[in-house]
């Protein structure tokens, strides 16, 4: 326990003094400020003339400013924070010969991973919370709407899910840093993993679904099946899991995580007429499975890290 705290403190100090962290933080701060500012401007325009807007405050996070909304931004580029914080965790120590020194002290091996992971996690928490606070502050002054208690609750849940999401990527990059001895290799592998699961998997999902259900044009049952297959494959992507688990939380007007809903004439009519927001508990209920999967994925990747690291030989060179 003591070893873990010592390593945690040292890693945290290292993070705070590293240039990498400063660059990252400046970048994130700048982008979130700009997106929020643009969103705020758009919001003021688009809300003009709306009689009773609901959850205006959350719109700050979901309505797109320049190109991305803040939520999308975190979903797409948040993983990079996690990867940058972790890709050289273990292999750098190995290359510099400090790993065997560290492990020749009376500490458990898992204390090394735990301490380093917790230090990275702390940085992630600081980043996410400060981004949200900055946007909240901007929102208060720009649109002049005070968030209600439910909006604050939703934001809190959103922050927690986002932290889990980034922690997953931190875990992945730590795993790569254990598996690959070379720092550059682990960085590239982590990037490739991110690109594949965030962008290419959708193409793959589409291709597989089209191959399995070739004639989906006319038959509505087939269309549903195809959409289901596509969605199922896409769910392997942490990005998809995260987008789904935050979908109804941050945007109460959404009622489902599905992109493809089959509705009849009358249903469509009633939907458009009674398009009220979901209550928080219902929103949470819809996305709970995704959140749990996201947490489970983080834990699996952590477990693999443990197993690999415990079994590794610590030759000094």
């Amino acid at each position, binding site marked *: 326990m003591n070893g873990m705290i010592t390593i945690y403190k*040292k890693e945290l100090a290292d993070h705070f003094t590293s240039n990498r962290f400063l660059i990252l933080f400046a970048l994130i701060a700048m982008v979130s400020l700009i997106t929020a500012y643009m969103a705020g401007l758009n919001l003021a325009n688009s809300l003009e003339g709306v009689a009773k807007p609901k959850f205006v405050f959350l719109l700050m996070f979901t309505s797109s400013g320049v190109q991305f909304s803040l939520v999308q931004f975190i979903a797409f580029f948040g993983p990079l924070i996690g990867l940058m914080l972790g890709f050289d965790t273990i292999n750098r120590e190995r290359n510099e010969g400090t790993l065997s020194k560290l492990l020749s*002290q009376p*500490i458990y091996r898992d204390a090394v991973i735990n301490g380093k992971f917790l230090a990275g996690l702390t940085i992630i928490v600081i980043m996410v919370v400060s981004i949200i606070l900055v946007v909240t502050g901007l929102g208060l002054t720009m649109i002049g709407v005070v968030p209600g208690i439910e909006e604050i609750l939703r934001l809190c849940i959103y922050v927690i899910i986002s932290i889990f999401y980034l922690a997953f990527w931190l875990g992945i990059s730590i795993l790569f840093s254990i598996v690959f001895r070379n720092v550059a290799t682990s960085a590239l592998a982590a990037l490739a993993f991110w690109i594949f699961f965030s962008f290419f998997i959708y193409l793959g999902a589409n291709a597989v679904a089209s191959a399995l259900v070739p004639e989906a044009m006319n038959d509505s049952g087939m269309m549903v099946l195809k959409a289901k297959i596509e969605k199922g494959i896409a769910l392997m992507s942490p990005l998809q899991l995260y987008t789904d688990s935050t979908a109804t939380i941050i945007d109460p007007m959404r009622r489902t995580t599905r992109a493809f809903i089959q509705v009849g004439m009358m249903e469509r009519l009633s939907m458009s007429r009674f398009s009220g927001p979901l209550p928080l508990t219902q929103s949470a209920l819809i996305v709970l499975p995704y959140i749990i999967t996201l947490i489970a994925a983080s834990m699996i990747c952590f477990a693999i890290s443990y197993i690999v690291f415990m079994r590794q030989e610590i030759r000094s060179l």
Partner: protein
Amino acid sequence: MEPKIIIQTKDLTKYYENQAAVDHLTFSVQEGEIFGFLGPNGAGKTTTLLMLMGLTEPSAGSANVMGINPTRDAIGVKRHIGYLQENMGFYRDLTAFQTLKFIADLNDVSEDIANDRIHSAIKTVGLENSSQKVISAYSRGMRQRLGIAEVLVKEPKIAFLDEPTLGLDPDTTNRIIDLIQWLSREKKMTIVISSHLLYQVQRICDRVGIMINGKMVACGEMDRLAEEKLGIGKEEYTLEALYMKYFQEGDA
């Protein structure tokens, strides 16, 4: 009085991809002595040291360090062993003081004692003037001395010094050798030193073990080994002659 045995191995064996790096090694180290661990590169000295600290698992055989089995209770063993590794790595952005503090914290040394120990260690190894400099500005000799300071801060019962004088200039080498003798005499540490610099080893070691291809070909007091092997008495032999004799036999 019979000397107390502090490290004991029995048939300790380590295979790397079907090749024995350490082959049925049986030897012991007595409490308070300086044990010279000699052998050509790749003879398995470092692997043996790593197994004794529980950092590497032996393929067969067993070891016993201060009554503890390092494979079972690595933490227990590591609490008693200070390890100066070959080509010691350091966190380059830390100062000497921060490095030593980090080591003290990892070893659960309380704040007051740690500060005392760090100051006296820095003084002992002669780094007073650069203790606030970051390590990336250190020369090789200074790093090696800082490595010994790390051992000092930990105050272990046993110190493993793996090639402590490798690549150092003669003056620094002498300082390190003096420091090692000081550790043994003043701090009553048991020291296992692996080295190629036979002249220095001969100067300070009580007993030596010569290891070739994973096997211990000779182990004991130098005088006795010299008499047995070279047939000449004290003060006439050099460790080098003795070592070469064993080495040629081992090769043949």
